[in-house]
């Protein structure tokens, strides 16, 4: 089952959510993923035959654009500053739901955690990138680059 967690499944899950929820068309990026203190990171655990965590790492500026699209608000709306974390968490929640369904299939029992915002130091971030059980996907919507990371425990 570990082999089922691959770039294709991750990409299908995240691209479906971004297309349907925030009207963004994604493509895989060749950019190098690196730690940035201004990146907002949401994480969500999953438990089942295979357990792990997914991280959605989004530049702060892009998170406001995402929240605006998700909520149908103008990008300069003052409310977006306080909504951006919730928007990132909710997108990750949707990505994990689709991702897990693709990995486990519809008939498998599993448990999903609750998405939360976390902070990762540069060394913690590097540790994830170098984890042999991690799948890391760099994505862009033609204007913004962000990443999705899956780590199996």
């Amino acid at each position, binding site marked *: 089952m570990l082999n089922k967690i691959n770039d294709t499944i991750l990409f299908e899950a995240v691209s479906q959510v971004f297309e349907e929820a925030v009207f963004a068309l994604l493509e895989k990026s060749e950019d190098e993923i690196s730690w940035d203190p201004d990146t907002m990171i949401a994480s969500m655990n999953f438990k089942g035959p295979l357990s792990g965590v997914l991280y959605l790492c989004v530049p702060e500026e892009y998170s406001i654009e995402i929240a605006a699209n998700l909520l149908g608000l103008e990008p300069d709306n003052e409310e977006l500053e306080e*909504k951006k974390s919730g928007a990132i968490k909710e997108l990750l929640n949707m990505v994990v*739901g689709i991702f897990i369904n693709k990995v486990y299939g519809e008939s*498998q029992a599993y448990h*999903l955690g609750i998405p939360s915002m976390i902070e990762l130091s540069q060394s913690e971030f590097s540790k994830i990138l170098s984890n042999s059980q991690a799948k890391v996907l760099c994505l862009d919507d033609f204007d913004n680059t962000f990443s999705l990371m899956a780590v199996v425990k």
Partner: protein
Amino acid sequence: MAYRVLIVDDSEIIRNIIKKAINISGVEVEKYFEAPNGSEALNLLLSEWVDIVFTDLNMPVMNGFELVDNMNTQDLLKDIPVIVVSSEQSSMKIEDLLSKGVREYIKKPFRPEHFKTIFQKVLGG
């Protein structure tokens, strides 16, 4: 007819999106009520008349499964239609919820048309 709608989700963003989706779908709503978890939803249901409940599953304090179970034990609440709106896609969980009386299941991400269909199917509106 205008409906009184309760939306239960720990994400304020999703509560707002569901409200927006219902408004876009053209369904007339008299009043929206909101709760961040099942426990607060139950308290609200005991003090306000609600025509339909949209609830998430994974929430802190009391989740959507527990909310449905609690509503089923109370004569006043057991006939209120409950629609689950969740990112969970497991057919086992969906079947379990439907067997408990949940009327419909909407998978996230959703489209506003889903809500129009649900209102027509569940409340005839």
